[in-house]
């Protein structure tokens, strides 16, 4: 298991790295003109104020030296800095122990030692042709730059049993101003086969402000699956936000028990329009389509289901 995991994680890293490569490419800004523009280095116009300030007492200057740059008009030299001293000047005046403690507190002080949040991006009721259902998708984190990250999602028919549900926990490491690399474990719940997966994901903000998640999973049965999610917030007005959202689920192999085929298993496109009473509380309505692909579509048809499902949704996006 551990050996397989290691191999899996290494392979998944390759998938995950596709995204940062993209982000680096976008660090470059095509179309930015720098041509024909010189670096301004000189500290602007020379002391022209000499004429403007008859009232000011003249600086002691020797005769004929008036053209020499004075004061801050002079350029800096290139003296070497002194070495850094590893003591506290305050210890010469105050109790060294108290000083050392206060210094340590100052160096490590932050508004809070840890931050945390729980965000429910989707908590909705779905109106479908073949019955209503409900769905949630949310995440929570604790930490600062690097975080303990928890994600959960699930859905099920109204009045029925939980169909699909997952909980995952990961260590999330900031690898750039916008991207986090996450490694952890996912546990499936619900009516299907209950699996445990190793997970490696890349999460963050892509150019054009797309919220992205690309995750790869290896189950305890050796099955490979993957998921890519992207969404973007378009502000219609200051409070009304349209959020288009796509999701692709992938599988490396046929999994008859889960009724999933190799390749693209499902693709989803949704539009959710929310009204932000506050950033922390925003009810929404929307529509979402899910297509099953390839062998997965065959399974659906064999089960008497349509490979395409459309639902209208009503929900609340929130965080606390």
């Amino acid at each position: 298991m551990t050996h397989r995991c290691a191999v899996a994680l290494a392979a998944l890293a390759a998938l995950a790295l596709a995204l940062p490569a993209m982000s680096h490419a976008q660090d470059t800004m095509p179309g930015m003109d720098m041509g024909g523009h010189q670096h301004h280095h000189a500290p602007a116009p020379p002391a022209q104020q000499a004429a403007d300030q008859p009232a000011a007492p003249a600086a002691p200057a020797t005769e004929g030296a008036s053209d020499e740059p004075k004061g801050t008009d002079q350029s800096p030299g290139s003296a070497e800095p002194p070495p850094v001293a590893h003591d506290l000047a305050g210890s010469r005046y105050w109790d060294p122990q108290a000083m050392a403690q206060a210094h340590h507190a100052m160096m490590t002080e932050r508004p809070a030692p840890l931050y945390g949040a729980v965000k429910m991006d989707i908590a909705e009721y779905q109106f479908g042709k073949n019955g209503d259902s409900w769905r949630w998708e949310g995440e929570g984190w604790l930490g600062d730059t690097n975080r303990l990250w928890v994600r959960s999602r699930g859905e099920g028919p109204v009045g029925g049993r939980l169909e699909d549900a997952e909980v995952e926990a990961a260590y999330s490491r900031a690898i750039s101003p916008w991207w986090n690399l996450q490694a952890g474990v996912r546990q499936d719940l619900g009516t299907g086969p209950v699996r445990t997966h190793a997970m490696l994901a890349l999460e963050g903000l892509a150019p054009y402000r797309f919220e992205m998640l690309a995750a790869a999973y290896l189950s305890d049965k050796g099955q490979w699956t993957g998921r890519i999610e992207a969404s973007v917030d378009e502000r219609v007005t200051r409070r009304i936000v349209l959020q288009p959202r796509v999701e692709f689920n992938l599988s490396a192999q046929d999994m008859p028990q889960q009724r999933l085929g190799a390749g693209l298993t499902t693709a989803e496109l949704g539009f959710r329009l929310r009204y932000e009473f506050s950033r922390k509380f925003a009810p929404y309505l929307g529509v979402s389509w899910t297509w099953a692909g390839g062998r997965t579509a065959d399974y659906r048809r064999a089960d008497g289901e349509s490979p395409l499902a459309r639902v209208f949704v009503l929900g609340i996006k929130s965080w606390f």
Partner: protein
Amino acid sequence: MSSWIIDRRALLGAVGQLGGVALAGQATPGWAKTLSQGGAALPSSEVLSGEAITLRIGKGHVTIGGKPAKAITINGTVPGPMLRLKEGQMLRLTVINELDEPSSLHWHGLVLPFQMDGVPGVSFPGIPPRSSFTYEFPIVQHGTYWYHSHSGLQEMMGCYAPIVIEPAEALPAPLPSMREHVVLLSDHSFVNPARIARNLKVEADYYNRQPQTLSGLMAGHELSMDQRLMWAKMRMSPTDIADVTASVMHYLANGHGPDENWTGLFTPGETVRLRFINAASMTFFNVRIPGLAMQVVAADGQDVQPVTVEEFQFGAGETYDVIVTPQNRAYTIAAETMDRSGMARATLAPAAGMAAPVPPRRARPLLTMKDMGMDMSGGAMKGMSMKMRDGSLAPQVKMGPGVDMISAMPEDRMGDPGIGMGDVGHKVLTYRDLVALHPNPDLRAPEREIEVHLTGAMERYMWSMDGKTMSQAHEPIPMRKGERVRFTLVNDTMMAHPIHLHGHIFELVTGHGDHSPRKHTVTVQPGGKASFDVTAEPGDWAFHCHLFLHMAMGMMRVVQVRPA
């Protein structure tokens, strides 16, 4: 607890003795009470003078729009008592910390022995809970300054007050004034500062309620689709001007909200000196008095040759003294926030009860490519490519998740009036307009240059210097005692940062030679750079962004000055 009640009673008694405005729960010192006659008429109990002064830091409230907001007070009030001192005197300040947490008071802009500077962990160990500390130092300068707590986010809770120091001998002023008022501008929230920090950490644009919208695009407002896409591609926002805005802050003039309308009185025809202090925790203000030109005569307490402006923008920690000559009518002092989301307001009037129209807030400005350290004024886009985050341009910066941008072509922006001030249609002060009244005390050329990059990652709400926060245990900036050094601050972020060096008055490098303007806090425009020359005073000194959450997140260093 019982001692707090006694203090509260004593406080109410003291307020009662002043008469006039003794409202229970309304904790404003006499110098800042709603109606002020100005400096000469102030009751001595709330303007503290002399060589021995006692201050108490405690819990209390400030009343905003009739509602009490939690505050940390000095002698029971927000702002605290004004210290009115005289150049050349000795000062012995006993500070009693009545809080259940450590506290401190820092004398912002004062040149003094470092161990009296009041920064816990840098200059002294701090004042432990329920104990006291005595500061003792000579007053060697004159002008407008202020003092505030340097512990935690206590300043953000109201722990600040003005200092006015008279010259040792009455100097012939180019513009003498017949009356003066302190106008201390600040921000205060009903939300706890730690909660504000947390909301920003979860969503960095949490308080930005003025984003670009699709409806604005349809209506043809502001940026075109191409420009919006360019910003989106960079994962940045041109509306990211202030991270803490009027959606959570209230803006105060001498502790009063806009409706309470603090009023400074004058006699028509008099020259009035207004001592503006930006004591806000997270706010830049655009200050103007419609109908009244202002002659700036001092910057950060240092005399400058009078320069006439209609408006000035200043950052947290900066002060300006201006002279105005009001006629027989009321005037509004409008201090709009830099992002134009809110306004502090006060009135100058010849009699109580008068008011002038309050100018409406102007449209919120947008950041430009210049604010990214990429000046586009050279011409049309020519398809050249430029990296937004090229670490090789700043080898000393530790690149990592906390650095989202390196200014590719940082420009000297000392001649820039500030964000949104370029097209307001009247004269706005710039640093280049300032010329020292007297020759600078140290005319040596700097022996070397220290470049410090102001860095951050907007999305993660991380702030640092050279890519490192304080908690990343970086080393201090070493200097030799008496050494003359040029600091060049490069702003690798899209926000303006007011950078304050403790215990020093430095000379801005703005082409004014031996009459360079002297300051203790310099605003570095986004994507730009700013230089100053300074003569090192011995000791350990704090050096930081005066936006308190930026400092608390790590945009701070210690400057270490040791014998050569």
